């Protein structure tokens, strides 16, 4: 494969997952379910090296994420360093334990934007889903973010338990002065995949939610931008995952593993490189993992001869692995996949409520699942 490929496009987005530590316990968390066994974290100097090398290659959008990035004591230092390198810096946070002094400190360090997640529009449901009392504090943080002149994205992950609150969620976003609202239907990786039967909405719930999202998109035009992310399970065609493997996105996990997509560490025998061993340039251009799904040499049927293969790149490889056991298969979300029934069966099951309780994302459960 090597040699026949033209030079890959440079990375433009860097997702820095600073830590897996998080005070919240959301059952749809995209972190790996065995995160409690991954204890090492990159040092401040390691992160600076990664940030510098990635910037030199072309990365310009930078997300500080986790876990909860605010638990890292060097967050402000890393923001300041990134700002000086010319990144557009985004903080992706639960807002938990954030106070006004921190919001000001980060602003002075050059932070460009804060995305706050809220789990629901009511205190009771928010605190239940988050597994932590946090609703009033989050709302307060959102107001402080606006007070200090940041653009704010309010992110609400949607699922069976909160999707009926669409109207209230959007009204809350207006009240809090959000500039952008991301209504992201749950994607079923990590903890969300484990809890899938309890989280999947019914088709009717989704149809209702979409109508409301469209209404507000029209009435808020020019004031608040609303992104409504339709869940790919219900779409029939796969998403162009990561804008194409190894073309745009680079994720660095807390322990330094470099991932073409933030779920990729679950792919077996994949050998994702670590920034402790290689430079970002070596990782992006030469590593097996980043070259693996570049181009279309890897494709099997029905992808290989599909007219849409340059549009969706075969969909999501992590999803193909999770649902079919082989990451080389077409994403079974695609209605041309011979294994599409793995998705339609799950949708049919969602019509009946699951008897199983939600498993919350915390270290105890993580260890329980992986011992």
């Amino acid at each position, binding site marked *: 494969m090597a040699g026949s490929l033209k030079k890959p496009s*440079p990375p*433009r*987005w860097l997702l820095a997952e600073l830590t897996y530590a998080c005070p919240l316990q959301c059952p749809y968390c995209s972190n790996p379910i065995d995160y409690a066994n991954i204890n090492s974290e990159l040092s401040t100097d390691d992160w600076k090296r990664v940030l510098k090398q990635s910037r*030199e*290659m*072309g990365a*310009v*959008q930078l*997300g500080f994420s986790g876990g909860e990035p605010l638990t890292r004591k060097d967050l402000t230092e890393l923001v300041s360093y990134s700002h000086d390198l*010319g990144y*557009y810096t*985004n903080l992706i946070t639960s807002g938990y334990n954030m106070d006004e002094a921190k919001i000001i400190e980060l602003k002075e360090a050059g932070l*460009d*934007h804060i*995305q706050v997640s809220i789990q629901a529009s009511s205190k009771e449901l928010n605190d239940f889903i988050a597994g932590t009392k946090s609703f009033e504090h989050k709302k307060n943080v959102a107001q402080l973010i606006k007070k200090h002149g940041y*653009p*704010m*994205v309010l992110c609400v992950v949607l699922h069976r338990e909160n999707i009926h609150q669409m109207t209230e969620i959007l009204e809350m976003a207006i009240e809090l002065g959000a*500039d*952008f609202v991301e209504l992201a239907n749950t994607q079923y990786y990590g903890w969300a995949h484990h809890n899938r039967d309890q989280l999947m909405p019914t088709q009717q719930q989704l149809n209702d939610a979409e109508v409301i999202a469209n209404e507000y998109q029209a009435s808020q035009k*020019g004031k608040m*931008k609303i992104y409504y992310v339709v869940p790919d399970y219900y779409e029939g065609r796969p998403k162009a995952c990561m804008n194409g493997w190894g073309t745009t996105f680079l994720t660095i996990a807390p322990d330094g593993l470099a991932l073409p997509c933030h779920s990729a560490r679950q792919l077996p025998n994949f050998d994702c490189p670590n920034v402790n061993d290689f430079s970002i340039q070596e990782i992006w251009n030469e590593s097996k993992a980043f070259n693996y799904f570049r181009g279309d040499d890897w494709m099997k049927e029905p992808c290989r001869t599909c007219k849409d293969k340059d549009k969706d790149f075969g969909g999501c490889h992590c999803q193909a692995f999770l649902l079919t056991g082989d990451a080389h298969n077409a994403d079974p979300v695609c209605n041309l996949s011979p294994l599409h029934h793995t998705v339609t069966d799950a949708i049919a099951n969602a019509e009946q409520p699951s008897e199983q309780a939600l498993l919350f994302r915390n270290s105890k459960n993580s260890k329980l699942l992986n011992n």
Partner: protein
Amino acid sequence: MSVEPTQFINLSPTYRLQWEEAQDMFVLLYPEGLVELNQSSSEILQLCKDDNKLSDIVTALEEKFSCTGLEPDIINFLNTALDNGWITQKA
């Protein structure tokens, strides 16, 4: 939305226009978003500042590129930019 000749045009405060050496192009940056701009788009957006009006932008670009008749293309792009929230106009 369409651009009004009497109004002042500026880049929206939530957006940042930046030259990217590695990619040899201007990009527009905003919360979790990135637009890679071709040359004509970036030439126009660079002039969306200092309370310029449509006529200021047209004049500046026609002078810079020694040509005439750019107004229709500039209006088209500015309308798109307004719709996307990249720029604001005010009286």
